[in-house]
């Protein structure tokens, strides 16, 4: 598959365009001016801690919450004030919300029956949707007779059977155990690619967002802090919040001077950042122990993680740095109190934006 040329990509209007969406509950501003675009066939993850407003954004897209301001446009159709049933955006709920009094087949055919489709047509579509999620053998079971993963797949089949313009997923894997969750995530990604469905997924799990999404919006206190492809978000978080949320171990105070960063009295070569005090984000595995020039420190604690050793290193200015080193056979673990010198590749050091 060839990727579309930039000019062509610009021609295609986004599947979903959200502009300046706001919502408050009483005095609490749940969502404050959120704007984003979703390309046709793309998956966008709304990632953030609980209470950050990500679910409220999803519920506004679905039509279950009324925005105070802003607009939601789905395929050039303004759906901001439409009732949920007129939006053609199918939602998969965290609890799956399967209808307990209907069989799997009846659940999956629900949206088609509501649309008064012919019986034969419903049967064909239900059979196809069930085949897609490998539940053909379970068509006549009731939801209570299914495992968690099967319930999840039923909910997914029910959502895609209506061929919606937009698929909405609210923490869809929250109730599954770890192994099943990973299997289901990959399965969902494949399904989504096969059907080319524009999808918005809400999650608090950064790994899940990384696996599923082609773009991730990190939401904090009702605002989008960063909207980037997963790799960029992982490598170059823009704010301390995003860095912490993406699991960056070291967020350190340093001094920027335009073409370098001074950390613990020693300079590291980084070509970014406006001069002045700044904060930098560096992953534990990005630091290496070197013999030459670098940031001096002392080992404060060592934890053997099996394949790696995690060191806590105290710098001369008192800051604590986490350093993860591959454990090589024959090499002794560094001892507490050892003097070490740290170095990191310029690429792996991210100068964070100053807090707004």
């Amino acid at each position, binding site marked *: 598959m060839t990727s579309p040329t930039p000019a062509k990509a610009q021609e295609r209007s986004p599947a979903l365009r959200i502009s300046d969406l706001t919502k408050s509950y009483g005095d609490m501003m749940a969502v404050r001016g959120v704007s984003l675009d979703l390309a046709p066939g793309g998956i966008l993850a709304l990632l953030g801690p609980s209470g950050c407003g990500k679910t409220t954004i999803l519920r506004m897209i*679905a039509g279950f919450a009324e925005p105070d301001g802003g607009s939601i446009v789905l395929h050039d159709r303004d759906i901001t004030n439409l009732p949920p049933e007129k939006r053609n955006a199918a939602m998969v709920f965290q609890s799956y919300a399967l209808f307990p009094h209907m069989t799997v087949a009846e659940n999956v055919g629900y949206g088609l029956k509501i649309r008064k489709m012919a019986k034969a047509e419903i049967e064909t579509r239900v059979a196809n949707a069930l085949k897609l999620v490998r539940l053909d053998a379970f068509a006549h079971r009731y939801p209570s007779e299914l495992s968690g993963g099967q319930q999840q797949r039923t909910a997914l089949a029910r959502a895609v059977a209506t061929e919606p313009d937009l698929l909405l997923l609210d923490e869809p894997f929250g109730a599954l155990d770890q192994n099943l969750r990973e299997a289901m995530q990959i399965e969902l990604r494949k399904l989504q690619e096969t059907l080319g469905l524009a999808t918005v997924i809400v999650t608090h799990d950064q790994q899940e967002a990384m696996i599923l999404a082609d773009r991730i919006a990190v939401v904090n206190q009702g605002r989008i802090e960063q909207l980037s492809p997963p790799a960029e978000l992982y490598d170059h978080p823009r704010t301390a919040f995003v860095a912490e949320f993406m699991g960056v171990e070291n967020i350190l105070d340093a001094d920027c001077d335009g073409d370098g960063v001074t950390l613990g009295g020693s300079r590291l070569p980084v070509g970014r950042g406006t001069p002045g005090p700044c904060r930098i984000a560096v992953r534990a595995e990005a630091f290496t122990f070197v013999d030459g020039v670098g940031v001096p420190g002392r080992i404060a604690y060592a934890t053997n993680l099996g394949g790696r050793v995690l060191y806590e290193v105290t710098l001369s200015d008192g800051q604590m740095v986490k350093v993860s080193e591959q454990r090589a056979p024959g090499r002794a673990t560094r001892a507490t109190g050892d003097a070490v010198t740290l170095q990191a590749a310029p690429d792996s050091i991210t100068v964070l934006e100053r807090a707004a």
Partner: protein
Amino acid sequence: MRQTPVLWLIWPLVAVMAVFFLALLRFADVSLLHQIPGTAMFEGPRHLGNYADTFASPLARQALLDTLVLSLEITALTILAGYPLAYLMARSPSDVLRNAIFFTLIVTFLSGGITRAYAWMLVLGTTGPVNGLIQAMGFERVRLINNQFGVVISIVHFILPFFVLTLLGAIKNIPATLEEAARSHGASRWEAFRTVTLPLSVPGLVSASLLAFTLAISSFLFPLLLGGGRVQMFANLIYDRIQSSFDMPTAAAMAMIFLIFALIPIALLNLIRGRLSRRFGGTRR
């Protein structure tokens, strides 16, 4: 070892239940005796004459039939009035509305039967506000009490809190996300209710209706006070039998017959409920 105290604790309950059951058995026993004429006493030998007499009496047969039909009507009206109230209480986003309904029902619940019966007399009487309104609109006054209408409306009012509060729990137990799921898959508010919430509430609806029917069929006070002697429900007939002729054995026989007839619809509804809970039984919600 750990079961011992639990088993022991059940005996006081069994004793209390036994007292009530023995009272019923004594009543059944009395129904087989016959009155010593001119007294309130009764004597043997035991026979089924009182039952045969009751079945032979057109008055008793008519009252039994009327009571069953009227109770079913009252139950139906209670469902019509009570379901929307229970649904609103379970689902309305407005605290004010939910609390208003709850408060009204609880006040109804707590005010005694006599109070309410006389309140209805005032409200529905020929000089009451309802008739005032009817007259103001240019119609003739209507008789709203001392007939079936007054009895039915007062009994529905009496039963409504029991019905609504029973059904409320059942509707609340149906996750609201099910309706949201229905709507996000294309169902309107009404379709979501009709295809999801309504069928899922049927077991609770049957329980609540069972309670309503039981309360309706055992009505005594409201027919007495608001029926004007024209509405003879079976409990009133039994009461009259004791009051007018002190004929306890015949009254007891009538009560036993009434009990059996009252149990038939209850057993039927229970059977339906049993089937439904088997259908919905395994659900994890």
